[in-house]
C-alpha cells in the first residue's frame, strides 16, 4: 500500500526567501506524485504533478518540485515566497499502474510566510 509523509507540520519563512515543503513517499512500482494547496474554507487546488521525464517539475504560481527516486522524495520549492502563499499544502501519491486514480494524501504542511 502506498503512503505519504510530510515531516513538518508547520513551515515558517520570511517573504522573499526561498521555501521548501518536504514530502517522502512509499509506493510499489513507479509513482505518480502531486502537490495540492488548500486555502481556508476552500477545496484543494492542483499545483503540479510528476508522471515521468524531467525530475524537476514546474507548476502554478511559481512553484516547482523535484522528484528524487533514490530518496523517494518530492519536495515542493519556490525561489521567493509571498505572503499570499500562506496555506496548507498536501503531497499525494498514486501507483502508476492505476492511472493515478487512487490518491493517498499526506497529512499536510501549513506554510506561513511572514511579511
Amino acid at each position, binding site marked *: 500500500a502506498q503512503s*505519504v509523509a510530510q515531516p513538518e507540520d508547520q513551515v515558517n519563512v520570511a517573504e522573499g526567501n526561498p521555501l521548501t515543503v518536504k514530502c517522502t513517499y512509499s509506493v510499489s512500482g513507479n509513482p*505518480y506524485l*502531486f502537490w*495540492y494547496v488548500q486555502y481556508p*474554507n*476552500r*477545496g*484543494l*487546488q*492542483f499545483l503540479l*504533478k510528476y*508522471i515521468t521525464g524531467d525530475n524537476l517539475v514546474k507548476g502554478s504560481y511559481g512553484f516547482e518540485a523535484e522528484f528524487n527516486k533514490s530518496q523517494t522524495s518530492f519536495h515542493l520549492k519556490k525561489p521567493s515566497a509571498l505572503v499570499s502563499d500562506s496555506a496548507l499544502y*498536501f503531497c*499525494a501519491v*498514486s501507483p502508476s499502474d492505476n*492511472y*493515478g*486514480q*487512487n*490518491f493517498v*494524501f*499526506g*497529512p*499536510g504542511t501549513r506554510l506561513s510566510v511572514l511579511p
Partner: protein
Amino acid sequence: EAGVVQSPRYKIIEKKQPVAFWCNPISGHNTLYWYRQNLGQGPELLIRYENEEAVDDSQLPKDRFSAERLKGVDSTLKIQPAELGDSAVYLCASSLVGYNEQFFGPGTRLTVL
C-alpha cells in the same frame, strides 16, 4: 468553465440524524470521488465512481454511509444515522478517465452535535 459544485457548504445536525451531501462534477468528467477530511489531516478516499459504477468503495463505512451517482453525473453521499465522529469536511472531486489531476469542490463542513 464551472468547477465542482457542492452543497450545502455547512451542515449542523444532532447525532443519530440523517444527512446528505450533493456534488455536481465538472462537465464531461467521468470519474467522481468522495473524500473525508478530518481536522488537521489529509483527505481520505471514501468512494470512487467511473460513470455510474462505484469502482472503489472499500473505505466507505457501509453500515451508515451510502452513495449514488445516477445517470453518471451528479452524486449524493448520505450518512444515516450520523455519529459524533462523522464531523469532518466532505470533499467531492472529479477527473477525466485516464487523466491524473483531480479537481476539488469547496467541501461540506459537517458538525455533529
